[in-house]
């Protein structure tokens, strides 16, 4: 499949009075046409900063992309001028934010908010844009679009508002859609509706989606591939089956084990991850997750682990995959769901950083 987007060694940092916060520390990933990549991680892991960097929405100062490339259609987005970037933003790469109330303008009718980017990017006339806006509202499942197009955001419920935001984002048929926790503020039933809508629209218009979330249930529902972020780095990436049925990084184990499934009995204690996320002003030496990990080896506190490759699509950044590492038993919740993956290599391979 063709790669739509390629991120290479991305570093984002923020200059504050207290020092430099290294929010994203060397992130590599690519996005193929028509696929959904989920980025998971807790707050402060750098997932939202990564997505904002793709859109060049990091406020500068204090933030800056200090290193790395974002290749989109053969162009490096980090090198574009603000004016050139404005042509990409909304047209080629669109974004859906977490809170539908704050991402819509409360003083503008929703019709004009959808028409805005159509007029700007596609040079449509006002009446043609209005027609297209009606079509979009119908597409995202808003009843009575002729009436609703003249209403203001406060007249919509949370789920309906998020549908409007989706309509705005999709108005110019973007190649990449970045959804930053689009369903976190919504109820489960509404969340299910929005997820179904997004999958449905993806089939219709063939966009690639980057889906940022901390809810593993949602990930299992929407993703083709998953990237797990911790402390500003991607610690594991693989297809959705590889991450859920054959995870290799202790942090992924922790995430999977700390969620009760519907058949977790009341007696078993949840395997909480102890401690708190690392302070990215002074990133820990070695493996950022080591201080919270029961599986940390001595080397984890000294040297940052390299990437190991487990199959063509599965990578994990942990010393546990090194041939000299002791064999460890993952938490019970992970072992219970483990399956053998046929595509796995006989032995994890060390990935040379220079090659990637």
């Amino acid at each position: 499949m063709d790669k739509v987007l390629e991120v290479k060694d991305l570093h984002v940092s923020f200059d504050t009075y207290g020092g430099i916060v290294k929010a994203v520390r060397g992130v590599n990933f690519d996005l193929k046409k028509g696929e959904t990549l989920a980025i998971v991680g807790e707050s402060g892991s750098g997932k939202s900063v990564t997505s904002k960097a793709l859109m060049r929405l990091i406020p500068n100062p204090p933030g800056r992309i200090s290193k790395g490339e974002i290749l989109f259609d053969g162009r490096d987005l980090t090198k574009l001028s603000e004016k050139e970037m404005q042509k990409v933003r909304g047209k080629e790469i669109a974004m859906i934010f977490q809170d539908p109330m704050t991402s819509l303008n409360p003083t503008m009718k929703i019709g004009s908010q959808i028409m805005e980017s159509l007029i700007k990017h596609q040079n449509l006339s006002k009446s043609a844009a209005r027609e297209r806006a009606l079509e979009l509202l119908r597409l995202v499942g808003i009843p009575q679009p002729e009436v609703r197009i003249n209403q203001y955001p406060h007249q919509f419920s949370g789920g309906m508002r998020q549908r409007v935001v989706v309509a705005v984002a999709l108005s110019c048929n973007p190649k990449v859609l970045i959804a930053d926790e689009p369903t976190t503020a919504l109820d489960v039933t509404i969340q299910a509706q929005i997820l179904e809508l997004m999958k449905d629209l993806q089939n219709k218009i063939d966009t690639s989606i980057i889906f940022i979330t901390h809810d593993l249930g949602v990930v299992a529902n929407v993703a083709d591939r998953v990237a797990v972020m911790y402390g500003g780095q991607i610690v594991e990436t693989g297809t959705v089956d590889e991450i859920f049925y054959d995870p290799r990084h202790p942090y992924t184990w922790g995430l999977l084990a700390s969620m009760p499934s519907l058949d977790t009995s009341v007696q078993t204690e949840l395997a909480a991850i102890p401690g708190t996320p690392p302070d990215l002003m002074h990133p820990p030496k070695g493996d950022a997750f080591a201080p919270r990990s029961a599986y940390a080896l001595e080397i984890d506190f000294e040297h940052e682990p390299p990437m190991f490759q487990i199959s063509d699509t599965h990578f994990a950044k942990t010393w546990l995959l090194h041939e000299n590492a002791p064999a460890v038993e993952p938490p019970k919740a992970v072992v219970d769901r483990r399956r053998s993956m046929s595509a796995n290599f006989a032995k994890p391979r060390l990935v040379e950083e220079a090659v990637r």
Partner: protein
Amino acid sequence: MAEKLLEIKNLKQHFNVGKPNQVKAVDGISFDIYKGETLGLVGESGCGKSTTGRSIIRLYNATDGEVLFEGENVHGKKSRSDLKKFNRKMQMIFQDPYASLNPRMTVGDIIAEGIDIHGLAKTRKERMDKVYELLNTVGLNQEHASRYPHEFSGGQRQRIGIARALAVDPDFIIADEPISALDVSIQAQVVNLMKKLQREKGLTYLFIAHDLSMVKYISDRIGVMYFGKLVELATSEELYKNPIHPYTQSLLSAIPLPDPESERTRKRIVYNPNIHNYAEGEAVEMREITPGHFVYCSEKEYKQYKTIYAK
């Protein structure tokens, strides 16, 4: 567990009474909470679950109905000292750990506020000892007592909220979405802490949340609310195995599970309130399908459900 700690009888909470924008946030719900159990309350936002919690603890004056705590009515006229006595037994943990702690008070003072009001400590030293002990109980350090809330992370703040609730030795704690604002890895920490405290102190919880898998995990019994009404109440095992009310079925079918395989095959059930088609004057109320499993239904539906259940 047979002993009732709390009885809620036909509780109603209406807002803007008599105005055109009258809202029936809670519209006649009845249930009991037994000593030492955790009752989970789930439903979509706006279904009245938080309002129920707030009415029970008298943050709102109920429009109608009774809340009996150990046989005594919570609402109605009360003397100051009665109110104080009652406030000691019932405490609340709030959803937003950022908004629920006073940013201008030290953590020590926040936790000790209840101790001061109820005069539970005679000397300064005793007061601080109590605070330190509480901080240890919830997994924080003594040194944290002199710090301010902004110095803590979300999970730590929620621990402070729990310590504050525990300070007056309550019997009953209402936890209104205590983990919704926290990260997954931190949620498990707080839930484990709450379960540990329940075991050690014999607390009773009313756990309000919309995360159904977490509610199932922590609760003994679960009530499902829809539009100000309780539509189903059963033990958590029973509710997930045999959901009867169509709304409960739809709610359960919408939970995303962390398992790609089941997600690919998942069929979502959509709830349409019109299917009930209640006739005018038809008595719709909570009826017991099997012992301990209540469903809000009409006489006709009751028979229907019973036959379905018998299969």
